[in-house]
């Protein structure tokens, strides 16, 4: 008997690694050949809605990377308390029995992405997938995990909302000029700073640096204060895309280079501008210790940096308007600041020196944006689309953002909701000088390579060596012939 149990355990131990991969490899997720049928069957229902028991109940699921009491709690509360009940009763008025289940999540964006990629690769997944970063569209589309809205539900192109969404914003959720989802909005990056600490360090309240050197000067002044980390510049792999988006890329735009040039079709190699950015990292995390290198390596480093910033332990933090809206806003569950509006200031990110940015700009920023996609595996594309449409209706966006403003994808809504000083600043001052990431399937891997390069510098490697390492990693990803030098 004893032997049997031992063998059982042995088999279990052996199985584990094999199973994990087999589970991932089970299905190549070819789109169902009969997909269009689903789309055709559903509209019939709409043409003659028969209120009452004749209409079969439909259940759909909606996923977001938001969860009550945790990440993006406002979004989760809005969905559960307002959007789903409203949608269900709206559909009930039309005679449909619809149940929407919310699948919340509070994971890091990278883990959330892995989850939905695995869901979709097995032919499953929620019917409507929110929290979908625009830069994932290319790789998901090429993997056949998602499909153009026109293919899944052709009626979607008639939605009146499209007229309200600028083409540049629609581009966020498009690939090869086809729409894959409804964009949720856009954002911009700035340097936030703590005015109280700035006052203690003898720095002006309306601080606006015009070069990297001035950022470092301010950091040196803050360094004199006790128990204050002068600057948080995201670095390292554990910060994930936040390192690339809030750290590396805005700096790189300030050197005049883009990670990928649309014109030449080439990626930026390791020398020159990349090294300049890494030198800035070295200046922050090197001997002067203007930043906290350990914070960049902690598994929960980003959340901890938010906490420290909200508690006045960090002087400057480069972040997107997400920080203002969803992290340090007084109603947040992450790092609320009651006195946010009085204490926190913001400044545009300067180029390395005036005029050194892309297109000769003095100031730069990076923008992105996500949205919601329609799962091609859904059994009720029509209902799922109706839900997506509803969630991006002016009515729904006003309910969501009236007290929690952000730049939504709809111009008609933005005109009504943006009265917050910070969000107006992003809309008026930052969006005109901003840049976007390339929507190519190689980008996420390149992004990780950039994170690794910053991590190397944060932990003491010389910028030159880290840049060289980046060059060779990049060659492995895109091929040496696609790199400019």
């Amino acid at each position, binding site marked *: 008997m004893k*032997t049997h149990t*031992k063998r059982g*355990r*042995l*088999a279990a*131990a*052996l*199985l*584990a*690694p*094999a*199973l*994990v*991969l*087999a589970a*991932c*490899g089970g299905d*190549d*997720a070819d789109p169902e050949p009969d997909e269009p049928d689903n789309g055709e069957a559903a509209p019939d229902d709409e043409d003659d809605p028969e209120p009452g028991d004749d209409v079969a109940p439909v259940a759909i699921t909606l996923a977001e990377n938001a969860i009550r009491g945790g990440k993006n709690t406002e979004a989760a509360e809005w969905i559960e308390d307002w959007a789903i009940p409203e949608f269900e009763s709206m559909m009930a008025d039309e005679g449909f029995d619809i149940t929407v289940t919310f699948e919340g999540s509070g994971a890091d964006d*990278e*883990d959330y992405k*892995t989850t939905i*990629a*695995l869901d979709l*690769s097995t032919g499953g997944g929620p019917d409507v997938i929110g929290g979908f970063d625009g830069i*994932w569209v*290319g*790789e*998901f589309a*090429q*993997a*056949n*995990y998602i499909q153009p809205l026109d293919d899944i539900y052709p009626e979607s192109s008639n939605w009146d909302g499209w007229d309200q969404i600028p083409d540049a914003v629609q581009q966020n959720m498009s690939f090869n000029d086809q729409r894959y989802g409804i964009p949720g909005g856009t954002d911009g990056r700035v340097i936030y700073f703590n005015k109280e600490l700035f006052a203690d360090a003898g720095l002006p309240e309306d601080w606006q640096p015009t070069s990297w050197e001035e950022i470092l000067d301010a950091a040196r002044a803050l360094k004199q204060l006790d128990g204050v980390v002068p600057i948080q510049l995201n670095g*390292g*792999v*554990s910060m994930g895309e936040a390192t690339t988006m809030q750290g590396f890329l805005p700096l790189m735009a300030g050197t005049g280079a883009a990670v990928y040039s649309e014109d030449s079709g080439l990626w930026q190699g390791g020398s020159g501008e990349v090294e300049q950015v890494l030198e800035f990292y070295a200046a922050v995390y090197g001997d002067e210790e203007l930043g906290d290198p*350990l914070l960049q*390596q*902690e*598994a929960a480093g980003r959340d*901890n940096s938010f906490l420290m910033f909200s508690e006045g332990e960090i002087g400057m933090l480069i972040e997107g308007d997400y920080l203002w809206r969803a992290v340090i806003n007084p109603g947040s569950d992450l790092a609320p600041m009651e006195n946010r509006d009085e204490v926190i200031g913001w400044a545009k990110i300067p180029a390395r020196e005036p005029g050194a940015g892309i297109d000769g700009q003095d100031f730069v920023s990076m923008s992105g944006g996500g949205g919601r996609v329609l799962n091609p595996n859904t059994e009720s594309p029509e209902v799922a689309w109706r839900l997506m449409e509803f969630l991006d209706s002016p009515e729904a966006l006003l309910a969501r953002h009236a007290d929690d403003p952000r730049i939504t994808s709809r111009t008609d809504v933005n005109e009504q909701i943006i009265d917050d000083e910070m969000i107006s600043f992003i809309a008026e001052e930052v969006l005109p000088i901003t840049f976007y990431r390339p929507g190519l*399937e190689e980008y*996420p*891997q390149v992004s*990780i390579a950039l994170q690794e390069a910053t*991590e190397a510098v944060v*932990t003491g490697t010389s910028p030159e060596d880290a840049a060289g390492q980046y060059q060779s990693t990049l060659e492995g990803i895109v091929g040496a012939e696609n790199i400019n030098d």
Partner: protein
Amino acid sequence: MPRTSTTDHEPLGPGENAGSQRPEKRRTDPDAAGLGRARATAFVVPALVLIGVFLIFPALWTLYLGVTNWRLTGLAAAEPEFVGLDNYIDALTDDRFLSSLYRTFVFVIGSAILGQMVLGFTIAWVMRRTNKLVRGFVETLVLIAWILPASVIAWLWLVLLDRRSGTLNALLGTEGTAWLLEYPMQSIIAFNIFNGTAFSMLLFSSALASIPPSQMETARMVGAGTWATLRDVVFPNIRGHILTVLLLVTLWTFNVFAPFLLTGGGPGQQTEIFPVLIYRMALQTGELGRGAAFSLIMIVINLVIALVYLRVLRERRQS
């Protein structure tokens, strides 16, 4: 057993006795349960199907995936290409792979062999004579650390080792020490010892109980010290158990993933033991093909350990 049955059969050859009643009866002998070939097959098939579906097929599938450039997303997810042995060649020449193998080795030696086994034995040895209450208390504590889900334990350890308000820093007065960053490997070794010592302790407790009391008594009569008793009486008696614990704990620790919950493999790659490397590569970076190749290498290492274990077990039974 097999040998006796063959000798039984030898005279039954289809020679002179064919046709007579006796050999016919004898021929049905192997079918002791009287099921007949068809029914016997029917009984075995479900088990074989399960093994086939959950063990053999995944292993073969992993073998196939390992020779492709299959990725989680992108073009290579829709149409993976055959890349031959590239993934394996990459693995064996990749610093990240080799240093991960080395780290796994350190982790297994440190947490499984030196940690769980030595600590498990020590607890079992000390508790053997203490009163029931103390013994029950200690054993319960150790067991709780074992039966709690790894995610719960990991959370407790995160709180314990936290840099800003961690319990350990408060106890030691070492404020601001980031244990998970400054002593990452030591931290996950301690974590794994904490999490897994109960198995060794339980097995060693029962092994110690199986030592004939007369031998222990004799040792005491001749005035043998603790060390001499251990060396001359205890270890020779429980050698088989030690081997079992050694191999099982090694195998489990080699596959353990829970340290990922503490450090995520970092800082850098300092706690990237083998299962963590595969997870990061296959699911975080999305390189499923390479991940599959690495998994297969891991399966082979597991098989080697398992074979050693089975062989040792067989020798024990024969002797």
